[in-house]
Protein backbone atom coordinates (compact mmCIF):
# COMPACT_ATOMS: atom_id res chain seq x y z
CA UNK A 1 0.00 0.00 0.00
CA UNK A 2 2.79 2.39 0.85
CA UNK A 3 4.16 4.03 -2.25
CA UNK A 4 1.53 2.43 -4.47
CA UNK A 5 0.92 4.59 -7.53
CA UNK A 6 -2.43 6.21 -8.13
CA UNK A 7 -3.86 7.85 -11.16
CA UNK A 8 -4.63 10.95 -9.14
CA UNK A 9 -1.90 12.92 -7.35
CA UNK A 10 -3.61 13.17 -4.00
CA UNK A 11 -5.76 10.06 -3.79
CA UNK A 12 -4.69 7.65 -1.09
CA UNK A 13 -5.52 4.20 0.12
CA UNK A 14 -5.85 4.06 3.86
CA UNK A 15 -6.05 0.37 4.44
CA UNK A 16 -9.25 -0.67 2.70
CA UNK A 17 -10.49 2.95 2.41
CA UNK A 18 -9.78 4.97 -0.70
CA UNK A 19 -9.89 8.74 -0.27
CA UNK A 20 -9.64 11.47 -2.91
CA UNK A 21 -7.07 13.24 -0.76
CA UNK A 22 -5.37 12.48 2.57
CA UNK A 23 -7.22 15.04 4.70
CA UNK A 24 -9.84 13.91 7.18
CA UNK A 25 -11.87 15.74 9.77
CA UNK A 26 -10.74 14.77 13.30
CA UNK A 27 -13.39 13.41 15.60
CA UNK A 28 -15.22 15.89 17.80
CA UNK A 29 -14.64 18.84 15.51
CA UNK A 30 -17.88 20.08 13.92
CA UNK A 31 -18.81 16.44 14.02
CA UNK A 32 -22.56 16.12 14.58
CA UNK A 33 -24.30 17.57 11.55
CA UNK A 34 -24.77 16.01 8.11
CA UNK A 35 -25.16 19.49 6.64
CA UNK A 36 -21.76 20.48 7.97
CA UNK A 37 -20.24 17.23 6.68
CA UNK A 38 -21.55 18.07 3.22
CA UNK A 39 -20.24 21.61 3.42
CA UNK A 40 -16.78 20.34 4.39
CA UNK A 41 -16.86 17.74 1.64
CA UNK A 42 -17.85 20.37 -0.89
CA UNK A 43 -14.91 22.38 0.41
CA UNK A 44 -12.59 19.54 -0.55
CA UNK A 45 -11.98 17.53 2.61
CA UNK A 46 -11.02 13.91 1.94
CA UNK A 47 -13.23 12.28 4.57
CA UNK A 48 -15.13 12.93 7.77
CA UNK A 49 -14.71 11.34 11.15
CA UNK A 50 -17.77 12.07 13.24
CA UNK A 51 -17.94 13.11 16.87
CA UNK A 52 -17.52 10.02 19.06
CA UNK A 53 -20.96 8.46 19.38
CA UNK A 54 -22.14 6.46 22.38
CA UNK A 55 -25.17 4.22 22.84
CA UNK A 56 -27.10 6.82 24.82
CA UNK A 57 -27.02 10.60 24.39
CA UNK A 58 -24.46 12.32 26.61
CA UNK A 59 -24.74 15.92 27.77
CA UNK A 60 -21.03 16.26 28.48
CA UNK A 61 -19.52 18.66 30.98
CA UNK A 62 -20.60 22.19 31.80
CA UNK A 63 -18.79 25.01 30.03
CA UNK A 64 -16.01 26.07 29.81
CA UNK A 65 -15.37 22.95 27.78
CA UNK A 66 -13.01 24.45 25.22
CA UNK A 67 -10.25 26.87 26.16
CA UNK A 68 -8.03 28.48 23.53
CA UNK A 69 -4.47 28.74 24.87
CA UNK A 70 -3.06 30.89 22.08
CA UNK A 71 -0.77 30.02 19.18
CA UNK A 72 -3.26 27.54 17.69
CA UNK A 73 -3.28 25.45 20.83
CA UNK A 74 -6.43 24.42 22.67
CA UNK A 75 -7.51 22.62 25.79
CA UNK A 76 -10.85 20.81 25.94
CA UNK A 77 -12.95 18.67 28.16
CA UNK A 78 -16.19 18.37 26.31
CA UNK A 79 -17.04 15.15 28.07
CA UNK A 80 -17.90 13.23 24.91
CA UNK A 81 -21.23 15.01 24.58
CA UNK A 82 -23.10 13.45 21.67
CA UNK A 83 -26.68 12.79 20.61
CA UNK A 84 -26.42 9.01 20.99
CA UNK A 85 -26.45 6.43 18.24
CA UNK A 86 -30.18 6.53 17.61
CA UNK A 87 -30.39 10.23 16.88
CA UNK A 88 -27.06 10.17 15.09
CA UNK A 89 -28.03 7.37 12.75
CA UNK A 90 -30.97 9.55 11.74
CA UNK A 91 -28.59 12.45 11.20
CA UNK A 92 -26.53 10.60 8.60
CA UNK A 93 -29.33 8.45 7.22
CA UNK A 94 -29.63 10.55 4.07
CA UNK A 95 -25.86 10.64 3.45
CA UNK A 96 -25.22 10.06 -0.24
CA UNK A 97 -21.75 11.17 -1.17
CA UNK A 98 -19.73 12.02 1.92
CA UNK A 99 -17.12 9.43 3.01
CA UNK A 100 -18.07 9.17 6.67
CA UNK A 101 -16.15 7.30 9.33
CA UNK A 102 -18.19 7.03 12.52
CA UNK A 103 -16.21 7.39 15.73
CA UNK A 104 -17.53 5.11 18.45
CA UNK A 105 -17.02 5.23 22.18
CA UNK A 106 -18.31 2.83 24.78
CA UNK A 107 -17.88 1.76 28.34
CA UNK A 108 -17.92 -1.96 27.66
CA UNK A 109 -17.50 -4.22 24.66
CA UNK A 110 -21.26 -4.77 24.63
CA UNK A 111 -21.93 -1.18 23.59
CA UNK A 112 -20.31 -1.56 20.20
CA UNK A 113 -22.50 -4.21 18.51
CA UNK A 114 -25.55 -2.19 19.57
CA UNK A 115 -24.22 0.90 17.83
CA UNK A 116 -23.06 -1.01 14.78
CA UNK A 117 -26.52 -2.46 14.34
CA UNK A 118 -27.83 1.08 13.87
CA UNK A 119 -25.04 2.24 11.61
CA UNK A 120 -23.77 -0.64 9.53
CA UNK A 121 -26.42 -0.43 6.82
CA UNK A 122 -25.87 3.29 6.33
CA UNK A 123 -23.50 4.93 3.89
CA UNK A 124 -20.50 4.80 6.24
CA UNK A 125 -17.01 3.83 5.04
CA UNK A 126 -15.63 2.70 8.37
CA UNK A 127 -15.42 3.13 12.11
CA UNK A 128 -12.88 4.74 14.37
CA UNK A 129 -12.81 3.37 17.88
CA UNK A 130 -12.00 6.06 20.41
CA UNK A 131 -10.03 4.37 23.18
CA UNK A 132 -8.12 7.46 24.12
CA UNK A 133 -10.23 10.31 25.37
CA UNK A 134 -7.96 11.58 28.13
CA UNK A 135 -10.59 13.09 30.38
CA UNK A 136 -13.67 10.88 30.57
CA UNK A 137 -13.38 8.06 33.05
CA UNK A 138 -14.58 4.58 32.12
CA UNK A 139 -14.81 5.51 28.45
CA UNK A 140 -11.55 6.85 27.19
CA UNK A 141 -7.97 6.38 28.21
CA UNK A 142 -8.87 4.07 31.07
CA UNK A 143 -9.93 1.57 28.45
CA UNK A 144 -7.08 2.43 26.11
CA UNK A 145 -4.62 1.63 28.85
CA UNK A 146 -6.05 -1.82 29.44
CA UNK A 147 -4.75 -4.14 26.72
CA UNK A 148 -7.22 -6.90 27.47
CA UNK A 149 -10.15 -4.56 27.23
CA UNK A 150 -8.82 -3.11 23.99
CA UNK A 151 -8.47 -6.56 22.54
CA UNK A 152 -11.91 -7.66 23.66
CA UNK A 153 -13.57 -4.57 22.21
CA UNK A 154 -11.87 -4.88 18.84
CA UNK A 155 -12.50 -8.58 18.49
CA UNK A 156 -16.14 -8.00 19.37
CA UNK A 157 -16.48 -5.23 16.81
CA UNK A 158 -14.80 -7.28 14.08
CA UNK A 159 -17.39 -10.02 14.61
CA UNK A 160 -20.19 -7.53 13.96
CA UNK A 161 -19.03 -5.57 10.96
CA UNK A 162 -17.06 -6.05 7.79
CA UNK A 163 -16.29 -2.38 7.50
CA UNK A 164 -12.71 -1.33 8.25
CA UNK A 165 -11.96 -0.08 11.72
CA UNK A 166 -9.29 2.23 12.99
CA UNK A 167 -8.32 2.32 16.63
CA UNK A 168 -7.56 5.77 17.96
CA UNK A 169 -4.80 5.81 20.50
CA UNK A 170 -3.33 8.48 22.71
CA UNK A 171 -0.59 9.31 25.15
CA UNK A 172 -1.80 7.31 28.11
CA UNK A 173 0.06 5.05 30.42
CA UNK A 174 0.85 2.41 27.85
CA UNK A 175 3.48 2.71 25.17
CA UNK A 176 1.84 3.79 21.90
CA UNK A 177 3.51 1.05 19.92
CA UNK A 178 2.47 -1.64 22.39
CA UNK A 179 -1.16 -0.62 22.52
CA UNK A 180 -1.21 -0.35 18.71
CA UNK A 181 0.25 -3.82 18.47
CA UNK A 182 -2.53 -5.17 20.69
CA UNK A 183 -5.10 -3.41 18.50
CA UNK A 184 -3.64 -4.75 15.27
CA UNK A 185 -3.31 -8.27 16.62
CA UNK A 186 -6.95 -8.11 17.65
CA UNK A 187 -8.01 -7.17 14.14
CA UNK A 188 -7.77 -3.39 13.80
CA UNK A 189 -7.31 -2.37 10.16
CA UNK A 190 -5.79 1.00 10.94
CA UNK A 191 -4.45 3.04 13.83
CA UNK A 192 -5.27 6.71 14.38
CA UNK A 193 -2.66 8.59 16.41
CA UNK A 194 -3.01 10.71 18.48
CA UNK A 195 -5.86 11.96 20.61
CA UNK A 196 -5.45 14.99 22.85
CA UNK A 197 -2.87 14.89 25.66
CA UNK A 198 -4.02 15.19 29.29
CA UNK A 199 -3.41 18.75 30.38
CA UNK A 200 -4.70 21.58 32.53
CA UNK A 201 -4.89 25.35 32.77
CA UNK A 202 -5.35 27.46 35.89
CA UNK A 203 -6.33 31.10 35.73
CA UNK A 204 -3.81 32.76 38.03
CA UNK A 205 -5.90 35.79 38.87
CA UNK A 206 -8.92 33.86 40.10
CA UNK A 207 -6.74 30.85 41.07
CA UNK A 208 -9.30 28.58 39.47
CA UNK A 209 -8.82 25.79 36.92
CA UNK A 210 -10.53 27.04 33.79
CA UNK A 211 -12.14 23.85 32.49
CA UNK A 212 -15.22 22.86 34.44
CA UNK A 213 -13.79 19.34 34.46
CA UNK A 214 -10.43 20.75 35.71
CA UNK A 215 -8.43 18.36 33.51
CA UNK A 216 -8.80 18.10 29.77
CA UNK A 217 -6.94 17.32 26.59
CA UNK A 218 -4.38 19.45 24.79
CA UNK A 219 -4.78 19.79 21.03
CA UNK A 220 -3.43 21.92 18.24
CA UNK A 221 0.02 23.13 17.40
CA UNK A 222 1.58 22.25 20.75
CA UNK A 223 1.09 18.51 20.28
CA UNK A 224 2.20 18.17 16.67
CA UNK A 225 5.78 17.06 17.45
CA UNK A 226 4.33 14.43 19.80
CA UNK A 227 1.90 13.19 17.15
CA UNK A 228 4.64 13.03 14.52
CA UNK A 229 6.76 10.96 16.87
CA UNK A 230 3.92 8.52 17.60
CA UNK A 231 3.07 8.06 13.93
CA UNK A 232 6.74 7.46 13.14
CA UNK A 233 7.17 4.95 15.94
CA UNK A 234 4.01 2.98 15.19
CA UNK A 235 4.33 2.92 11.42
CA UNK A 236 7.99 2.02 11.55
CA UNK A 237 7.35 -1.05 13.68
CA UNK A 238 3.88 -2.25 12.74
CA UNK A 239 2.68 -3.14 9.27
CA UNK A 240 -0.56 -1.18 9.50
CA UNK A 241 -1.80 2.04 7.93
CA UNK A 242 -1.60 4.89 10.40
CA UNK A 243 -3.76 7.97 10.31
CA UNK A 244 -1.92 10.94 11.74
CA UNK A 245 -3.62 13.49 13.97
CA UNK A 246 -2.57 16.37 16.15
CA UNK A 247 -1.74 19.97 15.43
CA UNK A 248 -2.02 19.99 11.66
CA UNK A 249 -2.53 23.52 10.41
CA UNK A 250 -0.87 23.65 6.99
CA UNK A 251 0.00 21.49 4.02
CA UNK A 252 3.53 21.26 5.38
CA UNK A 253 2.14 19.59 8.48
CA UNK A 254 0.26 17.07 6.32
CA UNK A 255 3.50 16.31 4.49
CA UNK A 256 5.41 15.98 7.76
CA UNK A 257 2.90 13.43 9.09
CA UNK A 258 2.98 11.47 5.85
CA UNK A 259 6.78 11.37 5.71
CA UNK A 260 6.62 10.17 9.33
CA UNK A 261 4.44 7.32 8.14
CA UNK A 262 0.82 8.47 8.02
CA UNK A 263 -1.38 7.30 5.14
CA UNK A 264 -3.87 10.07 5.84
CA UNK A 265 -4.01 13.00 8.21
CA UNK A 266 -6.79 14.30 10.41
CA UNK A 267 -7.35 17.96 11.06
CA UNK A 268 -9.05 19.20 14.17
CA UNK A 269 -8.78 22.31 16.29
CA UNK A 270 -7.17 24.41 13.63
CA UNK A 271 -10.52 24.61 11.88
CA UNK A 272 -11.36 27.19 14.50
CA UNK A 273 -8.83 29.45 12.80
CA UNK A 274 -9.76 28.75 9.21
CA UNK A 275 -12.39 29.37 6.57
CA UNK A 276 -14.06 27.55 3.66
CA UNK A 277 -10.92 27.78 1.53
CA UNK A 278 -8.86 25.82 4.05
CA UNK A 279 -8.89 22.41 2.38
CA UNK A 280 -8.38 23.90 -1.05
CA UNK A 281 -5.32 25.66 0.24
CA UNK A 282 -4.06 22.42 1.77
CA UNK A 283 -4.61 20.39 -1.39
CA UNK A 284 -3.12 22.95 -3.72
CA UNK A 285 -0.11 23.27 -1.39
CA UNK A 286 0.30 19.51 -1.50
CA UNK A 287 0.05 19.45 -5.28
CA UNK A 288 2.66 22.17 -5.70
CA UNK A 289 4.98 20.33 -3.32
CA UNK A 290 4.62 17.05 -5.18
CA UNK A 291 5.11 18.74 -8.54
CA UNK A 292 8.29 20.41 -7.31
CA UNK A 293 9.61 17.09 -6.10
CA UNK A 294 8.48 15.26 -9.23
CA UNK A 295 6.29 12.88 -7.23
CA UNK A 296 3.31 11.37 -9.03
CA UNK A 297 1.18 10.30 -6.09
CA UNK A 298 1.35 11.46 -2.50
CA UNK A 299 1.36 7.85 -1.31
CA UNK A 300 5.00 7.73 -2.36
CA UNK A 301 6.09 9.95 0.51
CA UNK A 302 4.42 7.84 3.19
CA UNK A 303 7.04 6.70 5.67
CA UNK A 304 10.07 8.15 3.91
CA UNK A 305 11.45 9.05 7.35
CA UNK A 306 11.71 5.36 8.16
CA UNK A 307 15.03 5.43 6.35
CA UNK A 308 16.40 7.14 9.44
Amino acid at each position, binding site marked *: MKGEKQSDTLSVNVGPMRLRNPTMLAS*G*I*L*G*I*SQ*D*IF*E*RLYNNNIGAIVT*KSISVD*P*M*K*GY*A*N*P*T*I*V*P*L*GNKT*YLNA*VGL*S*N*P*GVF*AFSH*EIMRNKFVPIVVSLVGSSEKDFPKMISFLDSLNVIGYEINLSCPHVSKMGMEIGDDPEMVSLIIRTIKRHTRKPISVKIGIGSMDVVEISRVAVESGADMITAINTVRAMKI*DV*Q*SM*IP*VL*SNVIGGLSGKAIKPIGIRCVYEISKVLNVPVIGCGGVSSWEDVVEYMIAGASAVQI*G*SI*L*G*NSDDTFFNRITSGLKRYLARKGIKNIGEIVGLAHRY
Partner: protein
Amino acid sequence: MPIDIDLMRLARISETVMETSSVKTLVFKDRLGSKASAGQFLMVWIPRIEEIPMSVMVSRREGHAAVTVKKHGKGTTALFEMDVGDFIGLRGPYGNRFTISTEFTNVLLIGGGTGLVPLLRLAVNITRLNIRCTLIIGARTKDEVIFEEYARKFLSDGKGKVIVTTDDGSYGLKGTASDGMVKTIGEERYDCVYTCGPEIMMKKIFEISKEQSLPVQASLERYMKCGIGICGSCCIDRWLVCRDGTVFDSNQLSRMKEFGMAFRDKDGQKLQYK
Protein backbone atom coordinates in the same frame (compact mmCIF):
# COMPACT_ATOMS: atom_id res chain seq x y z
CA MET B 1 2.19 42.60 20.72
CA PRO B 2 -1.14 41.90 19.08
CA ILE B 3 -3.80 40.86 21.55
CA ASP B 4 -5.25 37.39 21.04
CA ILE B 5 -8.99 37.73 21.49
CA ASP B 6 -9.18 33.99 22.17
CA LEU B 7 -7.12 34.16 25.35
CA MET B 8 -9.40 34.52 28.31
CA ARG B 9 -9.03 37.81 30.15
CA LEU B 10 -10.49 38.71 33.53
CA ALA B 11 -12.61 41.82 33.94
CA ARG B 12 -13.90 43.41 37.10
CA ILE B 13 -17.49 44.55 37.12
CA SER B 14 -17.45 48.28 37.70
CA GLU B 15 -21.15 49.14 37.51
CA THR B 16 -24.49 47.35 37.38
CA VAL B 17 -27.90 48.52 36.20
CA MET B 18 -31.13 46.71 37.03
CA GLU B 19 -33.21 46.89 33.86
CA THR B 20 -36.15 44.84 35.22
CA SER B 21 -36.46 42.46 38.13
CA SER B 22 -34.84 39.71 36.05
CA VAL B 23 -32.65 41.67 33.63
CA LYS B 24 -29.42 43.33 34.68
CA THR B 25 -26.66 45.14 32.83
CA LEU B 26 -23.06 44.58 33.98
CA VAL B 27 -20.44 47.13 32.93
CA PHE B 28 -16.73 46.35 32.97
CA LYS B 29 -13.51 47.70 31.55
CA ASP B 30 -12.63 45.80 28.38
CA ARG B 31 -11.03 47.48 25.43
CA LEU B 32 -11.70 44.62 23.01
CA GLY B 33 -15.35 44.40 24.00
CA SER B 34 -15.78 48.14 23.76
CA LYS B 35 -14.84 47.93 20.08
CA ALA B 36 -17.23 45.09 19.23
CA SER B 37 -19.54 45.43 16.27
CA ALA B 38 -23.31 45.13 16.54
CA GLY B 39 -24.18 41.44 16.39
CA GLN B 40 -20.97 40.24 17.99
CA PHE B 41 -20.84 38.42 21.28
CA LEU B 42 -18.46 37.66 24.12
CA MET B 43 -17.93 34.30 25.75
CA VAL B 44 -18.43 35.17 29.42
CA TRP B 45 -16.89 32.96 32.08
CA ILE B 46 -18.56 32.84 35.46
CA PRO B 47 -15.76 31.14 37.37
CA ARG B 48 -16.51 27.56 38.43
CA ILE B 49 -20.10 27.86 37.16
CA GLU B 50 -20.48 28.31 33.42
CA GLU B 51 -19.27 30.02 30.32
CA ILE B 52 -22.02 31.52 28.17
CA PRO B 53 -22.34 33.67 25.07
CA MET B 54 -23.58 37.22 25.64
CA SER B 55 -24.18 39.97 23.10
CA VAL B 56 -22.06 43.04 23.64
CA MET B 57 -24.10 45.89 25.04
CA VAL B 58 -23.28 49.55 24.40
CA SER B 59 -21.48 51.23 27.24
CA ARG B 60 -21.20 54.93 27.57
CA ARG B 61 -17.82 54.68 29.28
CA GLU B 62 -14.74 54.83 27.08
CA GLY B 63 -12.89 51.51 26.99
CA HIS B 64 -15.74 49.75 28.74
CA ALA B 65 -18.12 47.10 27.52
CA ALA B 66 -21.28 45.69 29.03
CA VAL B 67 -23.58 42.71 28.88
CA THR B 68 -27.27 42.62 29.68
CA VAL B 69 -28.30 39.34 31.15
CA LYS B 70 -31.71 37.83 31.66
CA LYS B 71 -32.00 35.39 34.55
CA HIS B 72 -32.63 32.00 33.11
CA GLY B 73 -30.75 28.86 34.17
CA LYS B 74 -27.60 28.21 36.16
CA GLY B 75 -25.19 30.43 34.23
CA THR B 76 -27.37 33.47 33.65
CA THR B 77 -28.62 33.39 37.23
CA ALA B 78 -25.07 33.38 38.58
CA LEU B 79 -24.17 36.22 36.23
CA PHE B 80 -27.29 38.12 37.20
CA GLU B 81 -26.31 37.84 40.84
CA MET B 82 -22.86 39.28 40.30
CA ASP B 83 -22.07 42.68 41.67
CA VAL B 84 -19.57 45.51 41.43
CA GLY B 85 -16.09 44.16 42.21
CA ASP B 86 -16.80 40.62 41.05
CA PHE B 87 -14.69 39.15 38.28
CA ILE B 88 -15.78 37.53 35.05
CA GLY B 89 -13.66 36.01 32.30
CA LEU B 90 -14.01 37.15 28.70
CA ARG B 91 -13.13 35.82 25.26
CA GLY B 92 -14.00 37.47 21.98
CA PRO B 93 -15.75 39.48 20.62
CA TYR B 94 -16.75 36.81 18.14
CA GLY B 95 -18.99 36.49 15.12
CA ASN B 96 -19.88 38.68 12.18
CA ARG B 97 -21.95 41.87 12.34
CA PHE B 98 -25.05 43.56 11.02
CA THR B 99 -24.27 45.37 7.79
CA ILE B 100 -25.62 48.77 6.82
CA SER B 101 -25.78 50.14 3.30
CA THR B 102 -25.15 53.86 3.00
CA GLU B 103 -28.00 53.91 0.50
CA PHE B 104 -30.50 53.14 3.22
CA THR B 105 -32.62 56.04 4.40
CA ASN B 106 -35.02 54.36 6.80
CA VAL B 107 -34.66 51.05 8.60
CA LEU B 108 -36.66 48.97 11.04
CA LEU B 109 -35.18 47.29 14.10
CA ILE B 110 -37.23 44.71 15.96
CA GLY B 111 -36.04 43.21 19.20
CA GLY B 112 -37.47 41.01 21.90
CA GLY B 113 -36.01 40.64 25.39
CA THR B 114 -32.23 40.68 25.55
CA GLY B 115 -32.31 40.46 21.76
CA LEU B 116 -32.48 44.25 21.99
CA VAL B 117 -28.84 44.36 23.05
CA PRO B 118 -27.21 44.07 19.60
CA LEU B 119 -29.94 46.27 18.12
CA LEU B 120 -29.08 49.16 20.44
CA ARG B 121 -25.47 48.98 19.29
CA LEU B 122 -26.70 48.88 15.74
CA ALA B 123 -29.08 51.81 16.23
CA VAL B 124 -26.19 53.94 17.49
CA ASN B 125 -24.23 53.20 14.31
CA ILE B 126 -27.23 53.76 12.08
CA THR B 127 -28.13 57.16 13.46
CA ARG B 128 -24.49 58.21 13.10
CA LEU B 129 -24.89 57.57 9.36
CA ASN B 130 -27.96 59.83 9.34
CA ILE B 131 -30.26 56.96 8.54
CA ARG B 132 -33.69 57.11 10.15
CA CYS B 133 -34.48 54.24 12.39
CA THR B 134 -37.61 52.79 13.97
CA LEU B 135 -37.06 50.48 16.93
CA ILE B 136 -39.76 48.07 18.03
CA ILE B 137 -39.32 46.86 21.58
CA GLY B 138 -41.33 43.71 22.12
CA ALA B 139 -42.17 42.41 25.57
CA ARG B 140 -44.70 40.13 27.18
CA THR B 141 -45.84 42.68 29.71
CA LYS B 142 -45.11 46.19 30.92
CA ASP B 143 -42.57 45.16 33.56
CA GLU B 144 -40.44 43.42 30.99
CA VAL B 145 -39.98 46.36 28.68
CA ILE B 146 -36.29 47.23 28.65
CA PHE B 147 -34.13 50.01 27.30
CA GLU B 148 -37.13 52.15 26.34
CA GLU B 149 -35.91 55.32 27.99
CA TYR B 150 -32.40 54.94 26.61
CA ALA B 151 -33.71 54.26 23.10
CA ARG B 152 -36.17 57.14 23.16
CA LYS B 153 -33.41 59.49 24.18
CA PHE B 154 -31.06 58.83 21.31
CA LEU B 155 -33.81 58.28 18.73
CA SER B 156 -35.23 61.74 19.43
CA ASP B 157 -34.66 64.84 17.28
CA GLY B 158 -35.97 63.21 14.16
CA LYS B 159 -33.36 60.44 14.27
CA GLY B 160 -36.08 57.87 14.57
CA LYS B 161 -38.80 56.53 16.79
CA VAL B 162 -39.53 53.85 19.32
CA ILE B 163 -42.56 51.55 19.33
CA VAL B 164 -43.26 49.37 22.32
CA THR B 165 -45.52 46.34 22.08
CA THR B 166 -46.70 44.13 24.92
CA ASP B 167 -48.43 40.80 24.46
CA ASP B 168 -50.92 41.60 27.20
CA GLY B 169 -51.42 45.22 26.20
CA SER B 170 -50.31 46.47 29.62
CA TYR B 171 -48.12 49.06 27.88
CA GLY B 172 -47.71 50.45 24.37
CA LEU B 173 -49.31 48.61 21.47
CA LYS B 174 -51.15 45.44 22.40
CA GLY B 175 -49.71 42.50 20.48
CA THR B 176 -46.45 40.95 19.51
CA ALA B 177 -43.45 42.70 18.00
CA SER B 178 -44.49 41.32 14.61
CA ASP B 179 -47.91 42.91 15.01
CA GLY B 180 -46.06 46.17 15.58
CA MET B 181 -44.08 45.50 12.45
CA VAL B 182 -47.18 44.91 10.32
CA LYS B 183 -48.55 48.22 11.52
CA THR B 184 -45.47 50.31 10.87
CA ILE B 185 -44.64 48.86 7.46
CA GLY B 186 -48.16 49.82 6.50
CA GLU B 187 -47.28 53.41 7.35
CA GLU B 188 -43.66 53.82 6.27
CA ARG B 189 -41.30 52.46 3.68
CA TYR B 190 -38.25 50.69 5.15
CA ASP B 191 -35.07 49.64 3.35
CA CYS B 192 -34.16 46.85 5.70
CA VAL B 193 -35.35 44.96 8.76
CA TYR B 194 -32.92 44.04 11.53
CA THR B 195 -34.04 41.66 14.21
CA CYS B 196 -32.87 39.79 17.26
CA GLY B 197 -34.92 37.98 19.86
CA PRO B 198 -36.95 34.81 20.27
CA GLU B 199 -36.55 32.72 17.13
CA ILE B 200 -40.28 32.24 16.64
CA MET B 201 -40.63 36.03 16.56
CA MET B 202 -37.76 36.36 14.09
CA LYS B 203 -39.22 33.68 11.88
CA LYS B 204 -42.51 35.54 11.78
CA ILE B 205 -40.72 38.79 10.93
CA PHE B 206 -38.75 37.03 8.22
CA GLU B 207 -41.98 35.71 6.67
CA ILE B 208 -43.72 39.06 6.73
CA SER B 209 -40.64 40.65 5.19
CA LYS B 210 -40.49 38.04 2.47
CA GLU B 211 -44.05 38.82 1.42
CA GLN B 212 -43.12 42.50 1.24
CA SER B 213 -39.73 41.81 -0.42
CA LEU B 214 -38.05 43.55 2.49
CA PRO B 215 -34.46 42.41 3.15
CA VAL B 216 -33.89 41.02 6.64
CA GLN B 217 -30.87 40.58 8.83
CA ALA B 218 -31.43 38.38 11.86
CA SER B 219 -29.04 37.62 14.70
CA LEU B 220 -29.59 34.01 15.73
CA GLU B 221 -28.78 32.08 18.88
CA ARG B 222 -27.75 28.47 19.21
CA TYR B 223 -26.17 26.47 21.99
CA MET B 224 -22.48 27.40 22.08
CA LYS B 225 -19.47 25.77 23.63
CA CYS B 226 -16.42 27.12 21.89
CA GLY B 227 -17.63 30.26 20.11
CA ILE B 228 -14.85 29.79 17.57
CA GLY B 229 -15.99 27.19 15.06
CA ILE B 230 -14.51 24.06 16.60
CA CYS B 231 -17.20 22.16 18.44
CA GLY B 232 -20.11 22.37 15.99
CA SER B 233 -22.71 22.67 18.72
CA CYS B 234 -24.05 25.97 17.34
CA CYS B 235 -24.89 24.65 13.88
CA ILE B 236 -28.07 25.60 12.05
CA ASP B 237 -28.29 23.70 8.78
CA ARG B 238 -24.88 24.11 7.13
CA TRP B 239 -23.98 27.21 9.10
CA LEU B 240 -22.21 27.80 12.40
CA VAL B 241 -23.88 30.60 14.30
CA CYS B 242 -20.66 31.50 16.13
CA ARG B 243 -18.57 31.85 13.00
CA ASP B 244 -20.86 32.33 10.00
CA GLY B 245 -23.28 34.34 12.16
CA THR B 246 -24.64 35.47 14.46
CA VAL B 247 -26.14 37.63 11.71
CA PHE B 248 -27.73 35.96 8.66
CA ASP B 249 -29.44 37.67 5.74
CA SER B 250 -32.67 36.87 3.89
CA ASN B 251 -30.89 34.73 1.36
CA GLN B 252 -29.33 32.51 4.03
CA LEU B 253 -32.46 32.47 6.18
CA SER B 254 -34.56 31.33 3.26
CA ARG B 255 -32.22 28.39 2.68
CA MET B 256 -32.42 27.25 6.31
CA LYS B 257 -34.65 24.33 7.08
CA GLU B 258 -34.04 24.68 10.80
CA PHE B 259 -34.67 28.41 11.25
CA GLY B 260 -37.66 28.76 13.54
CA MET B 261 -38.21 25.02 13.32
CA ALA B 262 -35.48 23.11 15.09
CA PHE B 263 -32.46 23.61 17.31
CA ARG B 264 -29.86 21.39 18.90
CA ASP B 265 -29.62 20.57 22.56
CA LYS B 266 -26.43 20.39 24.62
CA ASP B 267 -25.83 16.85 23.40
CA GLY B 268 -26.43 17.77 19.76
CA GLN B 269 -29.87 16.19 19.40
CA LYS B 270 -32.19 18.08 17.12
CA LEU B 271 -35.35 19.26 18.85
CA GLN B 272 -38.37 21.02 17.39
CA TYR B 273 -39.47 24.49 18.48
CA LYS B 274 -42.82 24.28 20.16
